[in-house]
């Protein structure tokens, strides 16, 4: 049975209290490497949101098929195939409809195929028994949450560029500490809503 949770609560929860990055720590690699640059972060955030929303919906449908055939254990491999295919098609469609957007997303769109946040959302959707609409809301919200987090980190990194950071902590070191603080700050939201 789908959990009894309103769409709006689910939406807010996926952005804030269960932020895919800062609460579940998924999609960290691109989060850390891309947040060096604020424009790229924006592009990647946009791409992640788009792909998350679509793959959550498609994978929900695929999951129903797997369940009816009794082969749910194949979900990992099937989800990955679906994600790769969706990204491929999206790439072609965006390229055609909006070359500008395609240019600004650039290399990030294909890279999303291997972003664990995308697979993570599909797997949470399955564990938590979301309905079709809930899955889409959750996917969209998680994407926005990821976008928000990477923009915040990119902004902070831009601010700390000129900060007097001890040599041993420069680069990845201070970034990890920053992310730690951000994660703690997001814990502050956890009293507001809970999704499980």
């Amino acid at each position: 049975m789908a959990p009894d949770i309103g769409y709006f609560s689910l939406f807010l929860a996926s952005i804030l209290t269960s932020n895919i990055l800062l609460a579940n720590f998924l999609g960290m690699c691109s989060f850390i490497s891309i947040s060096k640059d604020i424009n790229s972060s924006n592009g990647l955030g946009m791409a992640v949101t788009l792909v998350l929303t679509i793959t959550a919906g498609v994978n929900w449908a695929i999951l129903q098929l797997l369940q009816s055939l009794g082969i749910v254990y194949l979900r990992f491999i099937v989800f990955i195939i679906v994600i790769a295919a969706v990204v491929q098609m999206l790439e072609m469609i965006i390229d055609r409809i909006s070359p500008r957007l395609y240019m600004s997303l650039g290399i990030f769109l294909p890279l999303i195929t291997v972003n664990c946040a995308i697979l993570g959302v599909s797997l949470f959707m399955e564990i938590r028994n979301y309905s079709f609409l809930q899955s889409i809301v959750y996917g969209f919200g998680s994407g926005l949450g990821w976008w928000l987090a990477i923009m915040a980190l990119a902004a902070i990194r831009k601010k700390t560029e000129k900060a007097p950071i001890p040599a041993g902590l420069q680069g990845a070191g201070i970034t990890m500490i920053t992310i730690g603080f951000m994660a703690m700050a997001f814990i502050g939201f956890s009293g507001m809503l809970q999704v499980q």
Partner: protein
Amino acid sequence: MNPAFFIAPLAISAVSAVLAALISLTDKIVNNYGEVTININGGKKKLQVNGGAPLLFSLAETGIYVPSACGGRGSCGACTVKVKTDIGPHLPTETPYLTKEQIADDVRLSCQIKVKQDLDIEIPESLFNIRKFTGVVERIADLTHDIKEVYIKLEDGQEANFVAGQYGQFEVPPYAKIRERTQRAYSMSSAPSDKGHLEFLVRLVPGGIVTTYVHEHMKEGEKVNVVAPVGEFHVQDNDSTMICVAGGSGMAPFKSIFNDMIETGKIEERDVWYFFGARTTKDLFYMDWLKELDAKYDRFHFIAALSEPQSDEPWDGETGLITDVLGKYLESVIDQEKTKEGYLCGSPGMLDACMAVMRKHDMKEENIYFDKFA
């Protein structure tokens, strides 16, 4: 038997098949840009091509070969083309290979940009001469233990018009574990007057795709493709002293250049110093021919140097690194007063080292010529 044995693979195959069908369907619908026009050099040439493919391949289809050492994989940065139509900002896959000036000047990597609309582009006029030749390997000869001379007869009366010093993209078919046709650049060693043939010197590079093929698989009588002529390396038309330095198969362009100079008589009109570096006598070739030129022409001087001469081999020439020998001659043998030009062909390391020696002896960087294709 458990039905899951069948259901699971069938389900995965079905899902993959449906997705693959969807992708190719999307590709058919979305990537259909219809016929577009590529306008080259302000109307000099107009091409009608089907849109959707990278510019490099669209041009190659119509017989215009923009030089590309990597074959369009975006890893060499050679296939630059100036695109005057606004097709959006430079891609992240292009910027690492372009200078700031090139980016400001709308120079693009033609293998990375797709033809989606009518384009206005500019390419060097010399590219119009570049074409794909088909030929038959007439002779493969061993010059040393690791250098082969490959002599190719062009088919059906094709004629190659090139300037001595230019190179060609030698193409080999898939073999062993190599799945794709592979192209690599080699200087032509035949004289430009020998229009019906192209000759290359190929040194075996351990692990090299094309060199291994030439050394271990290529047979006489086999068909090959060569995209030629490419490159800016050629003898400048003046009377300054030519300082030529080569190592190993870097001999190739100089064989072509000297033979061309002999035919045109230029070899008696200017001073030429040719330095050839090798490790041992086993790595030397064309010695008789070069010594004969040295004896026959007053103004042609040939100096070979061995860096690791073996005690059991007779050697009466120079010893030491070619750069040291070059430095010694520039210092005390070659006329200091005359202007000098450098012509180099060899490994990138050798090029850099020779440049340094030449600069040290007051030769101007803009007067040192080479084609770098490692």
